[in-house]
Each structure stands twice: as structure tokens, then as C-alpha cells.
């Protein structure tokens, strides 16, 4: 199972990433827990400088932009491979 975290304080881009994540999780029919992290203290624990951030199984895979659906799919696939 994947633990997916979307880091961001609720800006438009962060919401977009969250939507995309849900969409890809559904289309891959993954078992995944999607968590929104909005507190700056928790966000900064991942040592990032720009939001939105995307974290899969505690590993930062993207920051400061909206990854495409295809990219998110690849992120998930390679996380599954490692796990």
C-alpha cells in the first residue's frame, strides 16, 4: 500500500495536485492512503522550499509544480516496485 502525502497550505495548485493524485489512484485502482499536509511545521520536515509537494512513502518526488498525470503514474509505479 502506498502512503501519499500532498504538501501545501491550500493554494490552488495544491488542490489541483490532490485531485490528480486521487484520479490516478482510482485509474490504477491502487490501495493508497492520501493525506493532505497543511501545517508548515510538518511541511518543512520534508526539507522543501516550494509547494505543492508530493511525497510517496515518505520520499519527496515533486515540489513547486503540478506534475502531469503520466508523471504521477510513473511515480506510483516506481514506488510500488521498490515496496
Amino acid at each position: 500500500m502506498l502512503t501519499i502525502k500532498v504538501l501545501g497550505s491550500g493554494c490552488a495548485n495544491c488542490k489541483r495536485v490532490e485531485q490528480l493524485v486521487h484520479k490516478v489512484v482510482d485509474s490504477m485502482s491502487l490501495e493508497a492512503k492520501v493525506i493532505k499536509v497543511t501545517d508548515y511545521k510538518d511541511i518543512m520536515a520534508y526539507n522543501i522550499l516550494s509547494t505543492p509537494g508530493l511525497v510517496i512513502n515518505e520520499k519527496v518526488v515533486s515540489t513547486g509544480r503540478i506534475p502531469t498525470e503520466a508523471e504521477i503514474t510513473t511515480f506510483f509505479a516506481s514506488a510500488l516496485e521498490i515496496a
Partner: protein
Amino acid sequence: MSKQAKHYFKSPLREKKNDMTTISSPAKPASSQRTIILVALSGIVWVAAYNLIQPLANWISYSALRLPQDSHLGESLAFFLYDVPKILLLLSGMIFIISIIRSFFSPERTRALLGGKREGVANIFAAMLGIVTPFCSCSAVPLFIGFVESGIPLGVTFSFLIAAPTINEVAVIMLLGLFGWKVAALYVTSGLVIAIVAGIVIGRLKMERFVEDFVWQIKSGAGQVLDEKLTWNNRIERAWDSVKEIVGKVWLYVIIGIAVGAGIHGYVPESALASIMGKQAWWSVPAAVLLGIPLYSNAAGIIPIVSALMEKGASLGTVLAFMMAVVGLSLPEAVILRRVLKLPLLVTFFAVIAVAIIFIGYFFNLIL
């Protein structure tokens, strides 16, 4: 990520879940040649279009619609039909190039470059890196915390936080298209000077105690900083995405702004504005700055109007001050920064920039 993997996953996914392993196999970038050809073709189309719009605008206004050459309506229409496609073309082309350049920078790299430099020099670096580092004001808080926490002085952090939004690509490109490269260069230089000076001033004021306490308590995770290896294909794709995003966001403002500007261009008499926006009116610079504050982020709509106003007697210093206030003094950014700055520091931050902008306005009114 390989190109092949990407295409692979565009196909229906449910059935393929079991042979995920195939995606890790090395794939040669099959479509990179196609991308290069596509970029080259777009370049040629761009140049052709850019050269066609002036004759086309004149032809539509004066030949097809038979408006007389010196009529108000004819002049306004030709102005509008030329400027709208010109600005939209300029925005698309230049944002693409700027985004490619920016793909070589990241806030993480900027932070690493700034670490260990002494104040003064670091302020200059921070302001210049503010131009090329991809930055969105919604990320101002994590960036602020990350910079300060890694030991970058407060004043240097502010130099970056002032330059990044003020020297905004849309504003600079529109100035370039409507005022020419000299004014665009003046704007960029002024923005740099303001960011450097304001950052040094804030640094000297020793206002660290007015940073919210939680910022000093945050310990960034030991996690490795994400450092992506991008291929040219990635860079081009991302640059194209930001063109779509930015032009998609501003095109309507551009059209409305140019429409209003075209109206002023055709109908307002010459030097009608000299008395209120000219050099003689000493109060025009601070008034322009005040007026600019609530108009944040609408540079796209405001610059064409201001450009028309200048033809009618508004002076360049006043106009530049106005535009910097529109872009640089943004209320939403202040609201975001309130999360990490106590009120006295936030007010100082705003006041120092405002004073610097007013000073720049008077300076250009005086020397030009």
C-alpha cells in the same frame, strides 16, 4: 523517467498493473527528435506571424473596413488589432524561453548558492537569482522558512522575496512589447536596486525578533533535497506547460487592457494628462504608488493602459513607479507572509519597498 514508460502508461492501466516491471527497462528517447522539430517549426511560424500582424491589422482597419486613415476609430482599431496579437505572441515566445532558462534553476539551488556569502554581496546575488528562480508567491512561506532556517540572513532572504515577484516575466515582456527594450531594462534594473537596497536596510534594522517564533523552532528534516535530472524533452514540455498556464491566465486582461489603451490612443487629446501625471505634479509619484497597491497582479491589463497614458503626457518615472507598485506591493503576498512575520516587520517590509519605489519614480522624473 523514460519517455517510453510515459507512453506505456497512457494506455488503459488496469490490466497492465501486473507487469509494472517493464517500465524500469531503459528506453531510448524516441520522441526527442520529434520535439526538436516541433520547436523549430513553432519558431518559424512564430516569426512569420509576428511579421504579418502589422500589415494585416492595417489591411483590416483601412482596406477591409474602409475606415479613413486619420479617423479616431480607424486609429484605435488598427492599434488594437496590432497590439493584441503582438503581445500574445511575445508572451508565448518569451515565456517559453524564460521557462527553459528557469528549468536550470530551483529554489534549492538558489539557497545553496546564497549560503555562506557575506551580506551585501549576498543581497546582490539574491536579487539577481530572484529573476531566474522559478517562484510563486504561494510558496513564499516555505521558502522564507527554508532560507532563514538554513542560516541565510533575514535581509538577504528579503532581497530575494522582493526581486522574485517584482521582476515578473509578464510585466517585463509587456513593457518590452509596448515601451521598448530601454524601459524594460530600466524596470529590471530599478527592481534589482530596490530589492538589494530594501534587503540591506531590513538586514540593518535587526528585526529578527519580529519573525514568528515557530519559524526559529522548525528543524528541517534531514531528508535529501529533491534534485531532478531533467532531459531537454522534460524542459521543453514544462516550458510549454508554463506558457499555456501563464498565457491562459492573462490573455483576457491583455485584451481588455489593450482595448482601453486603444480607446485612449484614438480619443484622448495629446498631453491631456500632463498636468496630473506629468513631472510638474510632485504628488503624482506617491499617488501612483498608492493607487498601484490594490491593483496587484494585474500588470497584464494595466501596462497597455499606462502605455497609452504616457503618450498623452504622463511621465516615465510616475509610470514606472505605478507599475512597480502594482506588481511589487501585493496585498495577497502580505497576507501570506503574515504567517511568518510579526506585524512590525511586515509593515517595515512594505514601507521600505514603497519608499524605494517612490524614490525611483522621482529619480527617473528628474533625470529623463
